[in-house]
């Protein structure tokens, strides 16, 4: 592998997914984060004498939903077992989990990597279990606090096969699972609040060796980046040890993000004998075909299906070089990374790069279901506006759709994402109504405004975006949004000079004011055209339509030629 020729790393993940149910898995207590300690713990969660767990249907349905999404076997009969150990935040002295017969059996997951490649990762199993409470070690002098609000929170533990070989593959797999559970609506995906926690199992072996090396498990990672960094550190550490003739210990380690290193976990977890056995309080979980079918019939669109649909439906996969003229306005505004990628579009004949770029858009748009939904709303707004004007629908069909979609993608992944990131918001909390961005794009497309002025307008829209009492964008219908955008264009005088009369006069004026440069142009130094473009743009206050202006300039300069 790169960095360590002659070595191969083997990585598997165990991911705890907190299921977004209203109640806990075995009690009626609410399943919420952020409430005062021990206010969401009922007698069942507290493990008081005589209380009994009763499984709720919601977590089971969510597990089945996950299983169906990864094409896994759904066990018609699975068992809850007790995992026995003592810890103060484990109220019953055992955790109810699934061991021998989990509800979801083997499945598989396609994982897309950042370089556009995809690998298949086997899912060994996914099982239901209850979470423990939380020990709070730093709040009280000389004592440990215990918050049992989390006790009994339903978890789906997903175990992958040892199918990843680089830290990047490991983090991409975690990211893919994160995307999937959000699409399935079974987890809020909030990593900062521990809604998903990832344990990374890493081992290394000389390339070509079949036998797996001894593995270390890095526990409780809560970001994609940490998964990648912890795996990097472990691979380096293990190879270094083996190269020095030292063994790798099978142990549990923790990742310290400040020092960027892993360390063996202290105390608690030596080699525990968990004494698993079937929980006699809970009969086997029997899932009838009807239940599984009812879950299947409510399956939402999955991220990979939506990605494929975006490529097909919005033609993100079929943009030809010739249609790029209209795209460049938007493209020039997007974030650095994407801007760079877009410039490569002009490399003629390189289909591979062309395709990668648009797949890259599709990946980024569909990774987060909120972004994907927002994107579709924006494109829909643009289409509806066009249809209203053109009265008869899209004349140029797929190409127009692709153009609008690309503009929408660029604005969403560029300017909008940048604004959200600056304010630390995610898409679910985006205050700018999709209709407003749609209206803006309509006015870019019909050349009422230039890309440059659109950016000014976007900032104004963002600042002025009203938020309703519920924290969501104030209702923004398309008609209202267009009225708002048009009003802002007029009020600020941002209308692009597209009208050839006014622009023509301006061009003539500029050409007349610079006879020397005009002479140079006519002498064949066509580079001075850039000088004229700048002058006209300045004279127009940035409002000149660049395409029309260039044509008019060429005409004007050529006319002078004839005149001379």
């Amino acid at each position, binding site marked *: 592998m790169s960095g360590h020729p002659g070595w191969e790393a083997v990585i598997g993940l165990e991911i705890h997914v907190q299921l977004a149910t209203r109640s806990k898995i075995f009690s009626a207590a609410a399943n919420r984060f952020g409430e005062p300690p021990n206010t969401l713990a009922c*007698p069942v969660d*507290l*493990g*008081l*004498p*005589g*209380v*009994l*767990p*009763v*499984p709720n249907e919601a977590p089971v349905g969510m597990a089945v939903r996950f299983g169906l999404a990864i094409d896994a076997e759904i066990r018609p009969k699975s068992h809850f077992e*007790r995992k*026995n150990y*003592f810890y*103060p935040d484990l*109220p*019953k*002295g*055992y955790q109810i989990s699934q061991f021998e017969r989990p509800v979801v059996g083997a499945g598989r997951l396609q994982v897309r990597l950042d370089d556009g490649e995809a690998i298949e990762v086997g899912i060994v199993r996914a099982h239901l279990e209850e979470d423990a409470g939380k020990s709070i070690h730093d709040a009280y002098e000389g004592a440990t606090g*215990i918050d049992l609000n989390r006790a009994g929170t339903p978890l789906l533990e997903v175990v992958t096969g040892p199918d990843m070989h680089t830290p990047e593959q490991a983090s991409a797999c975690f990211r893919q699972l994160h995307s999937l559970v959000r699409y399935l609506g079974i987890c809020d995906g909030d990593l900062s609040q521990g809604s998903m926690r990832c344990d990374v199992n890493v081992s290394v072996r000389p390339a070509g060796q079949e036998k797996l090396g001894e593995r270390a498990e890095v526990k409780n990672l809560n970001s994609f980046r940490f998964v990648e960094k912890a795996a990097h550190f472990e691979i380096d550490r293990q190879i270094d040890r083996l190269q020095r003739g030292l063994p790798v210990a099978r142990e549990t380690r923790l990742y310290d993000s400040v020092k960027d290193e892993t360390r063996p976990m202290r105390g608690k977890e030596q080699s525990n*004998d968990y*004494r698993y*056995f079937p929980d*006699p*309080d*809970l*009969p086997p979980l029997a899932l009838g075909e009807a239940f599984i079918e009812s879950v299947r019939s409510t399956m939402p669109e999955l991220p990979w299906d939506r990605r494929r649909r975006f490529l097909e439906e919005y033609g993100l996969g079929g943009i030809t070089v010739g249609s790029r003229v209209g795209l460049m306005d938007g493209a020039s505004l997007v974030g650095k990374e994407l801007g760079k990628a877009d410039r490569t579009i002009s490399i003629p004949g390189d289909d591979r790069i062309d395709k990668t770029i648009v797949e890259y858009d599709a990946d980024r748009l569909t990774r987060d279901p909120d972004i994907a939904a927002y994107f579709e709303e924006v494109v829909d707004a643009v289409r509806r506006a066009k249809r209203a004007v053109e009265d008869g629908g899209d004349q140029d069909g797929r190409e127009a759709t692709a153009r609008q979609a690309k503009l929408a993608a660029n604005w969403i992944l560029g300017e909008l994402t940048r604004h959200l990131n600056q304010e630390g918001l995610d898409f679910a909390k985006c205050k700018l109504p999709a209709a407003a961005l749609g209206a803006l794009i309509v006015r870019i497309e019909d050349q009422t405004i230039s890309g440059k002025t659109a950016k000014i307008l976007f900032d104004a829209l963002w600042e002025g975006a009203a938020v309703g009492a519920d924290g969501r964008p104030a209702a923004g219908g398309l008609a209202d949004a267009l009225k708002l955008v048009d009003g802002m264009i007029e009020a600020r005088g941002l209308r692009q000079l597209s009208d050839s009369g006014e622009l023509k006069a301006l061009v003539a004026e500029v050409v007349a004011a610079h006879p020397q440069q005009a002479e140079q142009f006519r002498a064949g130094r066509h580079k001075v055209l850039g000088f004229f473009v700048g002058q006209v743009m300045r004279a127009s206050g940035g409002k000149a339509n660049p395409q029309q202006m260039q044509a008019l300039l060429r005409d004007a300069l050529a006319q002078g030629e004839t005149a001379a």
Partner: protein
Amino acid sequence: MAAGLVRREWSSVELTEAALKRIARLDRSLNCFITLDADKALADARRADQALAMDRATPLTGIPLAHKDIFCIEGWRTTCASRMLADFVAPYTATAVARLQEAGTVTLGKLNMDEFAMGSSTETSFFGHTANPWALDRTPGGSSGGSAACVAAGLTAAATGTDTGGSIRQPAAFCGVTGLKPTYGRVSRYGMIAFASSLDQAGVLAGSVEDAALVLACMAGLDPSDATSSEHRDPWLEAVPRAGVGTLADGPLTVGLAKEFFKAIVAGGERIDEVRRTLERLGFRCLDLSLPHIAAAMPAYYVIAGAEASTNLSRYDGVRFGHRCAAPQSLADLYERSRGEGFGAEVKRRILTGTYALSAGYFDAYYLRAQKIRRLIAQDFAEAFKQADLLLAPTAPGTAFRRGQLTDDPVAMYQQDACTIPVNLAGLPALSLPCGLADGLPVGAQLIANHFDEERLLKTGAALQQATDWHERRPNLGWAEAA
């Protein structure tokens, strides 16, 4: 008693006061009650009298009852007879008790038992032993010894109990009362402190089959708070409060006698023979048969019950409730001393053996093998019920033994349950009926029925009690006057 309430011959408050008086006179010698609360009881009684006055009464309204201290009752101290829970006040009420309370019964108090229901003599209680009203130096059996002694001494007409390996039937036999262990799943386990979850079943001890049936009808039924409670509906049982137990209608039944049960008998065997003769006189057909695997029931039971108990009792760790040692020095110290001080010897013995049976390397040899035996025993019973409608067996090997007689010999103590344990392993309903005396002490006969066939079980029991007066024998309480 109930009829008198309805006819207004006496009020519930009068009944309750009379019971409290009798308890005050007798319970110093018996020690049936761990907790007695006259104020709460009289408040219940006044409510019951109001319901009676407004004709909103059930057949149980106004009847004073007492509950084994294994049932949580909101606002009542619930100890399970353990130091561990000596100060635990439950914030909820067990479903079985809640249903009795909703039916208007009066809760007098909480009854003594073996600690965490582990024992056969009510000697392992942190609150002292309970005496057998037939002979104060003898045990009342266990673990529901407080309940059995309470009913036998006439302190209440009925009392709740629980039965994991015989804990209702064996004390019922020792004290000469009727004890009913329903089908597993018939009565909710919610709020009943767990010993061995797959075996525990709540039931009732009473003066007669009719009374036991009335209490069962009230306690039984599906409970959404207990995933193991059964959805089985029983129109006959639901009709018991109006129509009583009733009589067998579908011709003479066949009663099987498994020879393996009779091997265990050390005293009172002739009384069981008398039951057989009585049944035959009543038209029952008696049949000898075999349950070949029940010899292995005892070891299987102690492995399974111990395994489940070892983890059911993990929650008593001194962290959130229950006994906590003074000034713990570390987490390990907190666990070790809290549990070391809070649990008695028998409880510790079972936690240790159960933990051992579940440990890596021993799980297959003990736990899995025990489960196999359990399945074989269930199959034995299934086969037997192809030949017979009911089974007749002794409830216990002998009569009530002397206090202290078996305390140093746990295996001999475990033998007490030889005839009752197989029934729990198979989850069947069974009844212990008084069937006369041997050497002045009561003997119990056990009837066992197929799953959810409480109807024929109780109808047969009622038929026997109509034909005999064994269940009407009461202990001579002369010792109370002497005291």
